[in-house]
């Protein structure tokens, strides 16, 4: 019951800040519930599938998620995720905790500075030119040309490996990668990332499922709570000042990263 309530909180935070929720599930499961990193990652990935597919449904229906581009980038992301999940099975708990701490520090840093590239100009030529509309921001049939696709796909391999090794969705890596490096509008990048995260999480989760590493009760509580939280978070996101909360959240992330490093070092 406690885990269910925490998962709802994680789902709300995930929906508010465009994260999969894994960044909250992992510290909660490892520090509060004393689970090892592998069990935590496995449960977290199941929760991420629930939140990702739940939130991606709306984005896909509106056409904000670029399904074609998402599937292209998922080819290398999935290869990374499969490799990461297999490697994770052979790594010591403390190594996984250190990798997670690094992801946490990176996410906290990214949240504090919120880098965002505004895509306004496009020559509307080439193989990878797409269009999108977003009624909320008054954008209608805006073309955008995807750049650096090959290097973006290579970097997605790393995002996939980190995701399955640590149990995070990888949205904190994919969104800036697509927006800043590949010239994709941030709204499309965020929506496409939501769609992709589910597929990446599947690749990791199915391996943990086959290995029997998933604790059913923990994964169920996390998935149901995260889904409810994501629904609540999506509804309240328009009413709260997420930018102001982001700065405070980054401090919380740095604190969690430090706690995880202490746990990795055997001090907790």
């Amino acid at each position, binding site marked *: 019951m406690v885990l269910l309530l925490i998962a709802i909180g994680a789902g709300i935070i995930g929906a508010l800040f465009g994260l999969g929720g894994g960044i909250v599930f992992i510290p909660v499961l490892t520090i509060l519930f004393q689970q090892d990193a592998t069990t935590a990652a496995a449960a977290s*990935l*199941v929760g991420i*599938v*629930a939140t*990702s*597919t*739940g939130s*991606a*449904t*709306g984005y*896909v*229906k*509106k*056409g904000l*998620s670029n*399904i*074609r581009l998402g*599937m*292209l980038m*998922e*080819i290398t992301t*999935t*290869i990374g*995720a*499969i490799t990461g*999940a*297999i490697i994770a*099975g052979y790594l010591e708990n403390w190594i996984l905790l250190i990798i997670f701490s690094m992801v946490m520090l990176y996410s906290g840093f990214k949240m504090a500075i919120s880098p965002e590239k505004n895509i306004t100009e496009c020559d509307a030529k080439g193989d990878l030119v797409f269009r999108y509309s977003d009624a909320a921001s008054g954008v209608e049939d805006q073309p955008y040309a995807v750049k650096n696709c090959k290097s973006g796909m290579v970097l997605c391999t790393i995002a996939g490996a980190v995701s399955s090794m640590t149990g995070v969705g990888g949205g904190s890596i994919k969104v800036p990668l697509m927006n800043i490096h590949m010239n994709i509008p941030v709204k499309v990048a965020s929506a496409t990332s939501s*769609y992709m995260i*589910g*597929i990446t*999480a*599947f*690749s990791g*989760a*199915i*391996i943990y*499922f*086959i*290995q029997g590493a*998933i604790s*059913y*009760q923990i*994964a*169920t*509580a996390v*998935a*149901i709570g995260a*889904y409810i939280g994501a629904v609540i978070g999506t509804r309240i996101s328009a009413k709260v000042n997420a930018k102001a909360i982001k700065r405070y959240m980054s401090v919380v992330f740095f604190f969690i990263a430090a706690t995880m490093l202490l746990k990795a070092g055997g001090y907790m």
Partner: protein
Amino acid sequence: MSLNSETAWILKTETSIGLCIMAVGLVASILGFGDLLMQVGILVLIFAPVLGVIVSTKCLIQEKDRKWSCVAIALIVILVVGMVISYFT
């Protein structure tokens, strides 16, 4: 239905079914027989994104979008190969 609406529908349906089975399993676990239900629910849930890709592939083939159909099929092949590798690792 279009690529987007069909994909969105299957994602929503599969996720809802998976979560419902898991919820019933969680309640049943109090009575001592929920493990199998939770296992099935987790499996249904985690396969939702893959079903989304399969439905997208079907739509792209119907739209005769050859280039993106090939990309979608390549992704399905990699997902299947990944499952096979993990099963034997």
